[in-house]
């Protein structure tokens, strides 16, 4: 629907020229893409198994039981154990494990002595140590990152959709609908966000599985935080609406829908884009905060907030949890902030005014 006009192209070029922001953007995007394929790097399932001259690729697909590989149990095969067995029995079978051979949910009680909070151990593959129930901290960080980012992107899209719809309507229609709409937004914005989320999450029925719980948390959060952007959209639309090109469009008989989508939105998009990185940062912080307080994602979903909580309550005895989580959190949020700054600078109307 949108064509990249020369002005936007210039803005993008300017963004690219701001090295710090551009590189941050590349790093963050590649990290996210990597995390989407995280199973290939951090997983308790093997990358490849060769068993009786047959090659298996168990990561994506149905769970394979111990019996499938000649073991005596029906539940999911322990690939690390299998690897040890194949390495020793000389049968010619082999297993290739991912770099970090632990899943985010799996408790590594293979060590008899292990009772939680094992410090980082390069030999065993726990690069960032383990948490209270011997789950790999790195695995939980990675999958926690994936969930937080996905969540943040979903949050961004949803809040913007609502904010754009409400803001454009108020701005474009003006008059009473603007007045009423704005009052509604003001009232709604005064509902305390955190309390509402906490209340709703604590009474939410949980019968429909983790996916449902995550999306309902998303919906609840969006419900109470879309208002902020509405003001900006409304103001931008108001501003643009009174420009001559809109009047011209109206004169030649363009429908309101066409005017909004074809003429107004491309011109207010710069407002949206400058806010986007900060919205992402806000979303990551809120989901982490909620998890920290215990109102976020249902256990045992890997999450940074939950790790932080464990870390803080075991600050002295298991510092590796808090160190790795805080590092990851600060790193991610810094990247996002750099991107945000760069975007803001690139879209700065003082450089490329649309006022002509």
């Amino acid at each position: 629907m949108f064509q990249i006009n020369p002005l936007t192209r210039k803005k993008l070029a300017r963004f690219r020229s701001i090295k710090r922001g551009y590189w941050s953007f590349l790093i963050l995007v590649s990290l996210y893409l990597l995390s989407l394929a995280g199973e290939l790097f951090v997983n308790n399932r093997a990358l490849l198994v060769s068993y009786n001259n047959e090659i298996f690729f168990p990561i994506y697909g149905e769970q394979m039981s111990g019996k499938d590989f000649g073991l005596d149990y029906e539940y999911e095969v322990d690939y690390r154990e299998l690897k040890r067995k194949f390495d020793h029995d000389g049968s010619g079978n082999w297993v290739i494990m991912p770099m970090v051979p632990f899943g985010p949910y799996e408790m590594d009680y293979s060590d008899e002595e292990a009772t939680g909070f094992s410090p980082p151990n390069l030999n065993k593959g726990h690069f960032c140590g383990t948490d209270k129930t011997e789950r790999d901290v790195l695995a939980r960080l990675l999958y926690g990152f994936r969930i937080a980012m996905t969540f943040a992107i979903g949050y961004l899209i949803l809040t913007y959709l609502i904010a754009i719809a409400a803001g454009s309507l108020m701005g474009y229609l003006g008059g009473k609908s603007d007045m009423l709409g704005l009052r509604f937004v003001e009232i709604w914005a005064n509902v305390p966000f955190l309390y509402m989320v906490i209340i709703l999450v604590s009474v939410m029925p949980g019968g429909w599985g983790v996916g449902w719980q995550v999306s309902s948390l998303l919906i609840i959060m969006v419900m109470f935080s879309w208002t902020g952007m509405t003001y900006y959209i409304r103001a931008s639309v108001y501003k643009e609406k009174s420009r001559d090109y809109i009047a011209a469009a109206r004169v030649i008989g363009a429908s309101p829908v066409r005017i909004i989508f074809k003429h107004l939105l491309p011109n207010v998009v710069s407002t949206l884009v400058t806010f986007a990185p900060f919205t992402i940062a806000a979303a990551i912080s809120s989901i982490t905060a909620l998890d920290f307080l215990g109102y976020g994602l249902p256990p045992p979903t890997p999450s940074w907030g939950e790790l932080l909580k464990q870390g803080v309550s075991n600050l002295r005895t298991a510092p590796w949890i808090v160190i790795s989580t805080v590092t990851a959190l600060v790193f991610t949020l810094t990247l996002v902030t750099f991107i945000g700054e760069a975007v803001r600078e690139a879209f700065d109307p003082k450089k490329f005014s649309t006022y002509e």
Partner: protein
Amino acid sequence: MKKLKHLNTFIVITAVIFFSSCENPKLKPPRENVNQDNKEQAGVDGIDREFARELAREFGREFAIEFARQLKGSNNPVNFDFSKDSNNTQSIEGHIVKEGKVHPLLTHCSEDVLEFYQKHPDCFSILSADSLPEDLKWQDGSGEQEFASQNARRGGTWEVYMRDFPRTLRTIGPDANGAFRSYLLDYNVISLVHPHPNSDGYYPGLANSWAVGKDGRTVYFRLDPDAQYSDGKKVKVSDFFFFFYFMRSKHIQAPWYNDFYGKDKFQKVTLYDQETFSITFYKAKPDVVERVAIRAKPEHFYKELDGEFLSKYQWNPEPTTGAYVALAENVDKGKSVTLIRQKDWWADQKRFFRYRFNPEKIRVSVVRDYNKAFEVFLKGGVDMFGLAKTEFWYDKLPDNHKLVQNGYLSKVTFFNQTPPPSYALRINSQKPPLNDLNLRKGFHHAMNFDLVLEKIFRGDFVRMNTVADGYGGRSHPTIKAREFSIEKAVAYFAKGGFSERGGDGILVNSKGQRLSIELLTGYRHFEDVLVVLKEQAKKAGLELKLKVLEPTAAWKAANEKNHQVIFSAFNSFVELFPRFWEPYHSDNAYQEIGDSKFNEDGSLKSNLTTKVSTNNFTQTAVREIDHLINKYRDEEDLGKITEMAHQLSQMIHDHAVWVPAWKKPWLRIGHWNWIKFPEDWGPKETRDYEEFQVFWIDETEKDKILQAMEKGEVLKDNPTIRIYEKYKDN
């Protein structure tokens, strides 16, 4: 407007008449046919007292009374003072009020209170001392051993913490049941008689002797003549009348207490003389003495209750019979409450109290965060800290911690013997798919509590086995909790129709339903336990969906019986035998009463109405269990009670609705070494290190330790890691 004025006058008059009659406690109420002559007074009965009171408050009581007096042209509008008329007591013997005369034991009572007694003549009666049964075997606990140490010394300030500032200093009513109440009530106030924590006997409290009547349900008490409240007033027998007036009052806004101390259970209180009275329980129980051993309610303090109760006593604590007093001036709002030991406490030299309650002051300060409280403890700001949690015991205060090694802090394990809190997974046996017995049994075998005990609790906790562990002989001796066994679980699940594994390893039945169960809990701090159970249950093809809610939200869901499985615990009291009716009787599962909910073959009828807000979280409704529980509740012989308790434990085990989790057979605490304990550390039934207050503070030791800490010296006087195994259950 004019009309309104008249109305006001009317209301003021009625209010005034009401108040003038109860202003002076000596003005006794001529009501309910007591004084038919006084028509004017009888008329007051027809008025809504609450309303009258409200309005009198509005207009000012003094003014209102004066107004009424002038209106009636007399300074003493009602004259029913018969307290001076004491020669006449014989004639009113056996009655609370007879011919307008109040029994001398009750002359101080307010009108409202007397009226309450009169309304329930079957509950409150006064008999002459001659009518006491003669063959009573009075007991005074003299055969019991003291459990405190003679080495105890008085003095010092005991520093403790609470998580939240108390919202009130009342011990009853809304917001009163916070953690702070224990310092006012449970650890402090003296009851009539106390169960001895080292034996099955009792030791005297407010009553210096007691006797169980022939009927087995009436207990006679003789008050200790020394017993008094902290304001110097004596404890009177009538305070035990008043106790029930208080506990049954709607003004205290405590329905649980209203019910618990209701007429159904506490059927009668009889006063004999100034020291002797009896309480009749509804049933002859072997432990009837402790069931009726209530505390005294200071009638002189409350006089009567009204709609202002909550606000009036919000920060105005009642005088106590216990050693420690909370005074309003020692409340630092939001920060701390300091309790002061009474200088001339009446029980100071009594045999079972004399070496207890040793600190001069108890300062209860607010530390909102548990981990922060621990840090405060390590700095010496809190004297003792519970170390039951594994990570605190092993990781945060390990044996080689500097404070322990240097001899400043001790780590104590004390093996006790009490019914443990009933940590268990409670399966709602009416919710599919777990309404199938095979699936429930499979569920039991799929719960890897062994791993939880080994890894999360590092082998310090032990598995609970029956629904009634910790009741001595009443606990079933041989039942064992079903062990974690993938083979058995899978076999049971197959019997229940779930025999194929889906692509994710979870079992599915022929209809394609997955074996997925929601596990609800309100215990966020046990999340890790549930996570281990969840991961292990996957091996047996069972998916657990964890739902961790706020405690109140989880409780509500379970009360509405909306859960599939809930992980929860009920606190158990030190009782002689366990309770089965609340959690397992079908009357607590469905609203239909008794056998009407069963078909002839014993199966449940359809379309029954679930009963909410009961403790039957398992929705157990089995006719045979019902019948046995009914018999059990009626039984009075301990031998038969024991036998039936065993049968019931077995039946509930077979019904497989309750997956026992764990119990800890010990108390573990860390304490600064200036806190000293008796040789055995504490009595057998200690549930809480604060409970019996047998420790004391050695102030010289405190100075010594603080100095040593400053200089970094090592003190080697005491072993700092101590285990007390005297009461260890083998």
